């Protein structure tokens, strides 16, 4: 393998990885406040992209993206209020099934709203053929947008959770719900907020990756599975680790293409997930003790 080819695989891996990572962050937010894995997270990603594509007919791109994020946050809040909020200490099994049901409903709704067509947002800078050259290999400028957005989200989230009162209250919910209630925190509103936040971040992710991946009503599931793999790989609840794990998985996938038929690329990602679950369920960067505290 020549050096140039190596770099090209690396860049392709970064492309995949940054897409997975940005989807994975959404999982972590809801998990952190509620201990729920939201199986509908992929649909938030899809909804964001599709809404932005529709809005783009009337609005300039930045406003369309902002609008899409707002709309999806609303959907996230509605989902939480309608389906999650009034359950009294639901079992994990019940939560899994409900969020799966929500994901099916959102997907079917999207099918009947947008039809079966394939759409894409325009590239944020440049166009479909423009590329940036790195050491003889090339990469689409949109990838820089994805990575940049990833970084901004991770940093903002960290600041938000550490510095703002609302963020601190959300963390309190995650750490100990009963104690949080005793301190006078309205945990229910915190959960709604976390769903809104996750939906908004999912929508933003959807918009940023849409020029690369194209968007379709059933595009959410595939991204969600990869996103979840990455979230587990990094250790559930840790967004910065998710970014590293995402890049790692993406690069593994890209290099796997060089030795295996492309048809098995997805199977490899899932196989890695299974191995991680069997050997280190608390993730590559996670802490065994912390994971035990979060046991369901």
């Amino acid at each position, binding site marked *: 393998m020549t050096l140039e080819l190596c770099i090209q695989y690396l860049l392709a891996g970064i492309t995949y990885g940054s897409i997975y990572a940005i989807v994975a962050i959404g999982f972590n937010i809801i998990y952190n406040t509620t201990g729920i*894995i939201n199986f509908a997270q992929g649909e938030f990603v899809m909804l964001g992209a599709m809404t932005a594509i529709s809005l783009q007919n009337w609005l300039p791109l930045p406003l369309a993206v902002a609008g899409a994020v707002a709309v999806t946050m609303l959907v996230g809040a509605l989902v939480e209020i309608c*389906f999650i909020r009034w*359950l009294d200490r639901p*079992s*994990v*099994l*019940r939560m*899994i*099934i*409900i969020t*799966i*049901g*929500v*994901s*099916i*409903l959102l*997907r*079917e*709704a999207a099918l009947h709203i947008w039809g079966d067509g394939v759409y894409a947002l325009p590239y944020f800078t440049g166009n479909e053929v423009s590329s940036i050259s790195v050491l003889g290999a090339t990469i689409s400028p949109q990838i820089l947008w994805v990575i940049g957005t990833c970084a901004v989200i991770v940093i903002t989230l960290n600041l938000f959770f550490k510095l703002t009162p609302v963020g601190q209250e959300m963390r309190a919910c995650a750490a100990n719900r009963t104690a949080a209630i005793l301190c006078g925190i309205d945990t229910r509103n915190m959960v709604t907020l976390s769903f809104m936040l996750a939906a908004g971040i999912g929508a933003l992710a959807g918009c940023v990756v849409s020029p690369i991946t194209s968007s379709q009503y059933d595009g959410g*599931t595939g991204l969600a*599975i990869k996103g*979840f793999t990455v979230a*587990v790989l990094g250790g559930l609840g840790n967004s910065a680790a998710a970014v590293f794990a995402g890049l790692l998985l993406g690069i593994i996938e890209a290099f796997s293409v060089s030795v295996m*038929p492309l*048809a*098995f690329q*997805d*199977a490899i990602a*899932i*196989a890695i*997930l*299974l191995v991680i*679950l*069997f050997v280190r*369920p608390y993730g590559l960067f996670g802490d065994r003790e912390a994971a035990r505290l979060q*046991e*369901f």
Partner: protein
Amino acid sequence: MRPYLPFPFLLCLVVGVQLLTQWTDTAYYLTQLTMAAYYALLVIGLCLLMGYAGQISLGHAGFFGIGGYISAALTTHNLAGVDNSLIRLLERLGLLAASTDMFGDPLLTVHPWAAAAIAILTAVLVAWLIGGPVLKLTGHYLAMATLGFGIIIYRIALATPFFGEADGISEVPPLPLLPGLAISGDFSARVTNYYIAWGLLALGLLLLVNLIHSRIGLALRAIHGSEEAAASVGVDTAKAKLKTFVLSAAYAAAAGIFLTHYNGGIGPSEAGIMKSVRYVAIVAVGGMASLWGALLMAVLLNFLSLRGLFGTYDDAVFGLILIAIMLFAPDGVLRLGIAARLRAWRQAHASR
């Protein structure tokens, strides 16, 4: 004796439905009822795992796929013209079957029974191998691991030329049971196949009912209640869970084999995620720990879906059912206990 009471009713119902369709000249309903019965076989196996052992599996379509695909591939892969010692040995052992296809060309394939045995054994082996590590997980991790397993099986079916890639496998021969009796989708064999399917389903159900009223069933329920408590009174929880997992995988594979022979083919969607989710939905609607509820719902919902009643909203209907059941009746529709709830509500208000 009590757990076996519903069986005579089931018998009457099955015969009654058949006679009714004969009388009203609507025997075509039996086609979908036969297919639904095979899906129900999978669902009651999953019900044992989810309702009694308390373990979720989002990968049961994978086991269905293993069963269906292996028996379909072996019974359609033409060995005529291939000549080596292995083939000759198999032929001498009577494991191969010679026939002609619908266009008169000679076919030499693995005998359906041998293929079915290999398929079941493969499914059991796979379940046993992955069951160990998978069942150590709980909650979301367990759900995701089983989902991942299902996706891998789906991917393999879709990427392997031996399994027909996206087209799947067609022209699978009938599965002979007794002389003159075979699982096949021919229009002329509809009534017998209806009875075969329901006979197999009743048999499978009988085994499970037996099981849950034995010591093993008690152990399983103890695990569902609390794994630690069960372990402390001497139940080998890991072993009991693994056995249940393997058994339910075998049920799924058997359902896959039978339905594939009945349909004369199988496609990758049978091993897809949506199918697994659908089975979980049906078990949930039936009331998790209720074999009869699962059976009823499996037959009813699959029958309606296979008849195309839900039109383009097929998946949406299942999503809606999932949510509604989990929100309002997590114990299943059969246990809504409306009267009891009303009483409780009235008492609560009266005491105020």
